[in-house]
């Protein structure tokens, strides 16, 4: 059993801070929540995040109990969560432009 660290009780991702994770590993949590267990669907390196539950497209990815961005596709529990499937919601000039076009 590998462990990932969860920094806040409402988080839906955990961070690899001990051993790196390989596909198929059983993964449990320590830190502020210990109730979840998932099977890793990807290799996940030190410092990177794993989804602790299914996160639907558009849902908020929570770390520190706060939004670190939104899922840009459905993310399954056990998947690697990183820039390929989570998008920042801050400093997005491109989104502001789209909203302005939509409003016209």
């Amino acid at each position, binding site marked *: 059993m590998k462990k990932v*660290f969860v*920094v806040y009780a409402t988080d839906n991702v955990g*961070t*690899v*801070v*001990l051993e790196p994770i390989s596909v198929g590993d059983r993964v449990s949590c*320590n*830190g*502020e929540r210990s109730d979840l267990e998932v099977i890793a669907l990807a290799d996940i*390196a*030190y*410092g*990177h*995040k794993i989804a602790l539950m299914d996160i639907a497209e558009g849902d908020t*990815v929570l*770390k*520190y109990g*706060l*939004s*670190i*961005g939104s899922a840009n596709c459905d993310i399954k529990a056990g998947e690697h*969560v*990183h*820039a390929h499937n*989570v*998008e*920042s*919601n*801050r*400093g997005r000039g491109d989104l502001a432009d789209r909203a302005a076009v939509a409003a016209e």
Partner: protein
Amino acid sequence: MSEFMGYLRPNGDVGIRNHLLILSGTVYANGVCERVADTIYGAVPIVHANGRCQVAPDLRVTRRYLAGTAMNPNVGAVVIVDHFKEEGMTAEDLADDIAPTGKPIATVNIRGDGGFISAVEKATRYAQDFARQISLCQREAAPMSRILFGTECGTSDTTSGLASNPANGLAGEILIAQGGRMLMAECTEWMGCENWLTEKAASPAVAEAILSGVQHMEARALASGEDIRGSQPTGDNMAGGLSTIEEKSMGAVKKIGDSPIIEYLEIAEAPTKSEPGNYLMYGPGMGAESISSMAAAGCQVLTFCTGGGHTSNHPIMPTIKVTGNRQSFELMRDTVDVDVSGVFTDEITLAEAGQIVYDEVERVCSGYLTKSEALRDNNSFAIHRVGPSI
């Protein structure tokens, strides 16, 4: 309510150290200051590259840094040395700024006092008298509510946002619950977390000031020709697992806890309020400039959270290094004070880590030497520039 043993100053401030400062007014007085400090027991030289050919707004910030450092409660007495007359920042100007604290002050002017050798002699005699005078100060019990607790992070890694920073935020909450105040600067690292901060602002004016501070720092960065937002998180941040700017900034701002933000300060400016809670200050991410601005604002003690390990230490404000990276703690065992990496292995909870950090702060306030103090590695006095040399 816990107490610490500190030095009561004439203006009611309480210091946790009793330093004699040999303060250089300009770069050209540094040599005299160092020579005096070499001779006198316990004297600490404050030397720097500033004080000449600065535009007025920049010189005003330098003056706040220098006067504020001398006004810090950890300083018992001050000898100020300048080399000639710098318009707007002579030794007398600095002495006027410091005078309301009631601490002993002397000024020496290298030209006016007859050159380097005479200035060293005169300053050394003042310093000898002051060193003996402040040696009579005895530590006495004071409530922890008198502490202004500064916090900084540097050489951060994945562990910083998960262990040392949130543990530090919890330590701050323990102090605030006893009536104390916590100060955080580095507004570059508030970008992306503005909402989390403004939600805690004690008034709309404080919230507005926080937002304008971040915008100002961002504009300053953009004026350099580099779009930092386009490169945040950086490539190595992302390789390390940080996905978005929100995630990166959140790790940094978690150095403070959930208490209200009482006041927003300009760089190196002392709080005007005494209410318990968090205080934010405008300033850069550059560690030495940032912690020096917090010492100038009156912080008696500072925690420096670090992932990679760090040597930073301010000359008069004990700088407690905290890491969540066990390997860094092992490598930097002689300068990193506190290891909270046990949160990752279930040896301690985050709440326990917060208590461990707080307990170390309280001990250091009563006189326990930090590792860097014991090494006398006073490497982190630096002044933030807001204008060019002319």
